[in-house]
């Protein structure tokens, strides 16, 4: 268990800067997810911690030890790869023991650790099989087992669930969360799947364009996104954005409707109003809403219904209705905004939240 500190680390590939002065402290025992779209630098950052990529500038402290120049094997971290990278010609046991044998650990100790890990992951029976004889989920476990036996200061996961089918992914997610609670070890987990991030992490680090956009607990990033990017990236279906201008505590949208907004923005200007679908309600009667529009598509999801509406100026908005919504495509509906969940974003993407 160790604290990991990134202090203004940077990296370039040739002249392209891929990580720019990132600073971050990961507490001992914390489960941190790096979340971001592809190309955001999240994997690079993880690999810099692992030692698979160089750190051009800045410092990396793992358990208080300067590690930015250490070779990967000596950083006391273990990594689970996206494709697991199980050595196909070795049995499960040999796969797990390979790293330990490489540091010339005594055979009984190696065997003990392998057995312990196997027991913990409930795969004692698989030890003598080869990876090709395992299912996807089992391979995943072996990959984790291979990390566990090293008893590392931190676990690094590089999109480890992306090769599993949907059902297995959900189950493994829960198992991973359990594992984290049981082992209470530092874990860094890279994914582009916000559900994984939201469900498993203590904190989420959202990366975009080689920078950290926001660091926070899942609820923080959901309810108080620091930027337009985070607001749009987190949540499914994603937040609605409507262009308009703010003046004196109200937003005027392009279709002319005015929406009260208690937001402490510095000055009157054009802003984007952001509101999540669950904060937009379809009204029963006409004239009650903040705005109105024509229903284009209705998606019944069971416990709720998503209603895609075009406002009169043509901008699209998604509203959420109850599970048994009677709304039909073509209907004219009024929409009411829950103004306590309003966000405004200025041209640079900075966010202000409703008070």
């Amino acid at each position: 268990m160790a604290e990991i500190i990134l202090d203004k680390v940077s990296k370039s590939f040739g002249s392209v800067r891929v990580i720019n002065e990132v600073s971050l402290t990961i507490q001992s025992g914390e489960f941190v997810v790096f979340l971001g779209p592809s190309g955001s630098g999240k994997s690079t950052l993880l690999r810099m911690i692992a030692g698979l990529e160089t750190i051009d500038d800045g410092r990396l402290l793992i358990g208080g030890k300067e590690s930015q120049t250490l070779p990967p094997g000596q950083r006391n971290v273990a990594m689970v790869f996206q494709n697991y990278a199980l050595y196909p010609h070795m049995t499960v046991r040999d796969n797990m023991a390979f790293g330990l044998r490489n540091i010339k650990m005594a055979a009984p100790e190696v065997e003990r650790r392998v057995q312990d890990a196997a027991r913990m992951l409930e795969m004692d029976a698989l030890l003598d099989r080869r990876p090709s004889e395992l299912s996807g989920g089992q391979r995943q476990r072996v990959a984790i087992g291979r990390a566990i036996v090293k008893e590392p200061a931190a676990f690094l996961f590089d999109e480890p669930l992306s090769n599993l089918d949907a059902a297995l992914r959900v189950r493994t997610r829960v198992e991973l969360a359990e594992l984290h609670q049981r082992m209470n070890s530092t874990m860094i987990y890279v994914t582009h799947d916000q559900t994984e991030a939201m469900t498993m992490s203590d904190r989420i680090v959202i990366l975009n364009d080689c920078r950290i956009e926001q660091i926070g607990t899942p609820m923080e990033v959901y309810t108080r996104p620091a930027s337009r990017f985070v607001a749009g990236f987190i949540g499914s279906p994603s937040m609605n954005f409507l262009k308009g201008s703010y003046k004196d505590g109200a937003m005027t949208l392009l279709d002319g409707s005015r929406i009260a907004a208690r937001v402490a923005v510095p000055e009157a200007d054009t802003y984007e109003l952001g509101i999540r679908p669950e904060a937009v309600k379809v009204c029963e009667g006409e004239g009650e809403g903040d705005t109105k529009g024509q229903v284009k598509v209705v998606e019944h999801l069971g416990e709720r219904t998503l209603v895609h509406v075009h406002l009169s100026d043509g901008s699209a908005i998604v509203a959420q209705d109850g599970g048994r919504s009677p709304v039909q495509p073509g209907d004219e509906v009024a929409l009411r905004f829950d103004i306590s969940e309003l966000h405004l974003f200025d041209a640079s993407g900075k966010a202000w939240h409703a008070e």
Partner: protein
Amino acid sequence: MLRNTRRETLVALVLISPFLAIYGLTFVYPTVAMVNLSFTDAPLIGPGQWVGLDNYTRLAGERRFDTAFWNTAYFVALSVIPGTFVAMVIALGVSRLTGRMQALVLALFFLPYILPVSVVYRLWDWTLNFQFGIAMYVFDIWGIERVPIFKTTTWFMPAVAFVTIWWTCGFSILLFLAGLRAIPAEIYEAASLDNTGRWTMFRRITWPLLWPVTALVTTIQLILQLKIFDQVYLFSTGGRPNDNLVLVYYIFQRAFVNNQGGRAAAIAVVLFLIVVIVSVLNFQLMRLAERRK
């Protein structure tokens, strides 16, 4: 990837040093020595006098060189394209079969490829023997006049090309089969839903999709056949070597029979250049064709 450049270079050096030693010794050094030798009048073993370009200028009007050059070209023409064509036809035939039948038929076609050239020579020399060859008995039965195949200039090169195709075709057949297997069945299924006939299917689907393999096979054959020696040498024994000369044979003759290392080296350099030029041209042509697509 974090890399320790110095260490990595060191490791690389260790890994490539045996190879570098061998290559330096058996490839780079002999190439340089060959060019050097071609400017002297040295015998096969031993020193010689510097004679400048003499060995090259002499080649210009030399009959044996002419024969060797044109025979080589003739042989390439006779073996490369027909060989590729035969291999493709056979591969198409074999690909229709399945299971054990396919394995058996493929084995029959492929077996010659793994035989040493001297065995191939013995087999065909016997099969086509003018007096006792079984082929001649067949000729007799059909009322065709016997042909002393390896003793006439008219038949020698075509026959050697034929034997060469027989011998090396298995290799190309395998490549074509691999190419055919790589064409997804869905494409044929889709095409047959489009009412495609057998011939159209081949011309519009199989043939274009096989084109990369065809180009590969032709290239390999071309570079290989330019270096022909073994078959020509063996089939010429007791015959008319000077009529059947090909370039490598001529190098051998000058160097090892006539003991003229310098003159032989000049021929070798010329062949060397021919192969390099042909390879480069071929490579460029393929690139061009690729780009046109």
